[in-house]
């Protein structure tokens, strides 16, 4: 009795399992299940606007204390979450089996990560950030101070609450609605590793900012981080399309700063509400792949005037190339419209590199002549655009030279030679008759 019941259960489980793991798929790149690790469960309430914005967009949030021994992101080799939010700056080590390597493996397998640090950032959080190409100020007491672009406040006079408005210029990352009000930031700054080309400053500090301990005088050494080299919020898009956001401020996610009004020092504009909510919401849309995810389908090529794809081209053939590119809008794939998609006809190096023209409905096409060099070529579409996932497609195609009978016959220049031969032959025929039978 028990055995069939168990088998039935197992069958059920097996049928559910693919459903559980398939929510993050190629067809629907938006994340679904997100693990949120907190230092303190009161963050759930003090940062509830951020969480409710995620929930209202359909994310399934799983809150856990960062030292909860039951933390596991992986079970039976499958990840149970699509995204990880670490709002636990002071955690020295995670509970359960999660550690720095675990977090990095999570990202390496294409999952997304949001890390927020603050002045109490632990080595664990610093290490995770450093692995993503972001180095927080090593001085544990340093915070970002800016005496020229702070948020005017009657109660906070130490200029550590910064009104930052130097955003990354990218509609896909921050949405196409301009963020009018400055973003309030209170926390630590970081610098980007110049050798890392994946990491970008999403919000950078003003030229007058510096990273220091505001309550003690500066020693004889100038601060190690200053000016626009300080990044307040950085984003990373890895080659596998995993996206990471690293912020030096936990407070910028909080309801208090979401709701706070802001007036930047030296400016008369007073905003009812800071730009935090818009900034964080739009950025999280990007991080969790609600935006900026591309797919390319139907890569096609053919000779001009034909529709079948040939197995091989001859040099100097005229060909047509087309590819369709779609963009994920959060709920469906819409045509991606851009003027900078390029195709390469490539053998060791590109022989032809051409910008594709688009019909505005996702179809990109062009035509060109095959170079007069034979060998094994590739059609390559390497599309990298700020904020979008990169597309890298290639299709191999051989190119052959002319066959011997494909060259030009009866060249005019050779007419004298032809004439000479034939007049010779005719002369010989006549001469043979005359010579033999002349009397």
């Amino acid at each position, binding site marked *: 009795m028990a055995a069939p019941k168990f088998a039935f259960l197992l069958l059920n489980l097996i049928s559910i399992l693919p459903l559980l793991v398939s929510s993050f798929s190629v067809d629907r790149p938006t994340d679904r299940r997100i693990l949120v690790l907190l230092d303190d469960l009161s963050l759930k309430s*003090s940062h509830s606007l951020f969480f409710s914005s995620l929930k209202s967009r359909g994310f399934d949030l799983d809150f856990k204390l960062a030292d909860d021994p039951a933390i596991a992101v992986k079970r039976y080799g499958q990840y149970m979450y699509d995204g990880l939010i670490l709002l636990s700056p002071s955690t020295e080590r995670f509970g359960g089996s999660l550690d720095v390597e675990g977090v990095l493996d999570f990202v390496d397998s294409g999952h997304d990560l949001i890390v927020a640090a603050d002045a109490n950032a632990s080595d664990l959080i610093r290490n995770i950030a450093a692995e993503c190409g972001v180095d927080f100020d090593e001085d544990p007491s340093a915070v970002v101070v800016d*005496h020229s672009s702070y948020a005017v406040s009657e109660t906070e006079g130490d200029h550590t609450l910064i009104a930052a408005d130097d955003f990354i210029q990218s509609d896909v990352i921050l949405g196409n609605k301009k963020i009018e009000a400055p973003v309030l930031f209170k926390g630590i700054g970081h610098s980007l590793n110049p050798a890392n080309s994946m990491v970008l400053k999403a919000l950078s500090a003003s030229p007058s900012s510096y990273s220091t301990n505001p309550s003690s005088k500066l020693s004889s050494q100038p601060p190690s981080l200053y000016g626009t080299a300080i990044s307040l919020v950085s984003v990373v898009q890895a080659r596998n399309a995993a996206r990471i956001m690293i912020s030096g401020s936990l407070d910028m996610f909080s309801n*208090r700063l979401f709701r706070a009004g802001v007036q930047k020092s030296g400016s008369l504009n007073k905003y009812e509400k800071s730009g935090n909510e818009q900034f964080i919401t739009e950025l999280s849309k990007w991080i969790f792949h609600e935006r900026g995810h591309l797919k390319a389908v139907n890569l096609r090529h053919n000779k001009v005037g034909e529709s079948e794809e040939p197995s091989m081209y001859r040099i100097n053939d005229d060909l047509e190339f087309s590819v369709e590119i779609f963009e994920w809008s959060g709920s469906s794939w819409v045509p991606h419209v851009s003027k900078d998609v390029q195709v390469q006809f490539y053998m060791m190096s590109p022989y032809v590199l051409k910008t594709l023209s688009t019909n505005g409905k996702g179809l990109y096409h062009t035509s060109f002549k095959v170079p007069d060099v034979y060998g094994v070529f590739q059609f390559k579409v390497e599309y990298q655009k700020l904020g979008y996932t990169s597309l890298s497609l290639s299709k191999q195609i051989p190119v052959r030279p002319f066959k011997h009978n494909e060259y030009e016959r009866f060249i005019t220049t050779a007419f004298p030679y032809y004439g000479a031969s034939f007049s010779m032959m005719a002369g010989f025929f006549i001469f043979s008759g005359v010579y033999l039978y002349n009397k």
Partner: protein
Amino acid sequence: MARDLGILVIVVLVLAATCQSAVVSPVSESHRSAALELFSPAHGSYGSLEETYEALKTFKVLGIEKKHAIRTSSCASVADTLKSTSSALKDFFDALRVNSILKCELNSEAVRGTQSRLKDSLNGASSLIDFYYSIGGLVLLKEQMSEVDVNLGDADRIFRSIKALGQSDGRWRLSSNNPESSNNAAGIALEALAGVISLATPQIDNSWITTLKNDILKLFDGIERYDDGTYYFDEKHVGARGHQSPLSSSASVVRGIAAVAAATSETLNLPGEKIMGLAKFFLGVGVPGSAQDLYHQIDALSYLENIRESTPLILSLPATVISVTKKDQLKVRVSTLLGSPAPTLSVRLMQIFVSGSKDASVIDQELKFDAVSGMHVLETLPKNIDVGSYIFSFEVIFHNPEHKKTYVSGGRTRVLVHITGVIKIDNAEIVILDGDRGSVENQKKLKLPGDNAVALSANHLQKLRLSFDMSTPFGNAFKPHQAFLKLRHESGVDHIFLVGNSGKKFEIILDFLGLVEKFFYLPGRYNIQLTVGDADMENSFLQPLGFVELDLPDAPEKATRPPPQAVDPYSRYGPKAEITHIFRAPEKRPAKELSLTFLGLVLVPFFGFLAGLVQLGANLKNFPKSTVPSTFAILFHLGIAAVLALYTLFWLKLDLFTTLKALGFLGMFLMFVGHKTLSHLASTSSKLKSV
């Protein structure tokens, strides 16, 4: 006893005052707007009666009049719940709670039914939650309908059975078969016990109340403390009911204590410092983001506000950034937790510490009370206060000695105050000095803050000196936290220097000889930028001063390379330059006419040959006359023509193998017929010779 405790409290307060205490402000307008936002009913009603109660209670405490909008639907829901026999105990309790605020019209039958239902369940109750709901329901009934008999005959038994669930550390278990005890349950139990006390017809034995008071004090022993004097009740266990946040368990305890205090007329001797700490905890949460947390916060604050013998008073400063230039006044507000004005009292400024040092100046100055704004105002700043950051220490003095017993003010409150002002900058100049003699090569006056664009040039043997004076509005020296001189090379490499000072004078000398290594031997234009800023300086600035053209020696081979500069992300992406393949040029050919001309020329000898034949009178008279030889001759010449035609075909389309094969056959044929023809011709000619 009470006096001893009072002294103890004062000692503790003095001790606490030496630590930095948290500055919190009372419930404000932002709580009201958050409440309206969080408790917004969907389609005119809330999801459950519990939610309705939480919303109504929060609105009531915050003084928001919003009852009417949901009154009808909520009252209907209350009446339905009370009438229904299938309602759970919790629903009765929630319905009565909602009714306690809305005061709906209920028919007496339903009320009686509820009363008997609650009493029945009280008799059969075993878990704390059951006791809590039934007793709570009865207490609410008693308050709302005086005609219903809710008195408990067996109060002692019930009291004992609830008490049996209590632990020795003051916490409670939810039921006898659940070993985990919690602060949350303690709050529930206290509320239930307070209910029993108020419902008991023969009054409850006084000894029970004494043990209850001890339990409360024990509960306070297990309170958690933050460094800034904030106290809260934490929950160790994550029970079956899910995790209780410190906010909800602290609120539960506060509700329990308030209920006990209301039910008994005795003083509870609550530790004032911890009550103050709890109040600071609830206020320190700020504006919670969830409806339930907001309810817990506001509800607990409303109980703390009305707690007897130790009502907390909050000293807050609406502004801690005081501008000297704008002649701002330091204002202090003392209010209760919910923001209502405190009784008559005075605020004294006791001490002023310079931020970051231990030196304190004792002031002891009383602030003037401004009745219109309800603020205590420090009209003039003390003499020795200049622009800078200070810690002001305030103390609340009650005018009425009775108030000392009923209010707690948290002793001395220390507040970080920033006194800001416009800093004067004079005598700013930038000078190029000659290295050896120190003579001035080039001197430029600067206007700070203001627009400057100096153009200097220097070589590595010279020095650059920047100097300026800074003084506060009172004429004292001022040292800003940030005084940076930045030199930025065209290539993006930048160098930062701290500008040092002695007294008012700030000076920096850059000796380029010692800096060539640091500058990576990069000659060229360096933009100069000066940043001066401080938290207390109202005119902090970041200004380009101009540039200096540096002539530096060539880099030796081993010189360090400048660090790589971050690539601009906007230029990193984007389309690449197009590449078009350059095709091999076709070979050069002569003009068509030229070829045709040469064709004509090539054909000329053939026609000349024909003309020569005609001229010589060539004929075919020797052609054999007889049938057989003439046939062979014709075949022979046809064969030759065929070979020539084959050659033409070879040129046009045939390949070599077909041609050779055909040529073989034709050759054999030609050999045969040629031999016949030629031998015939030879025999004819030899006949002629012999003749």
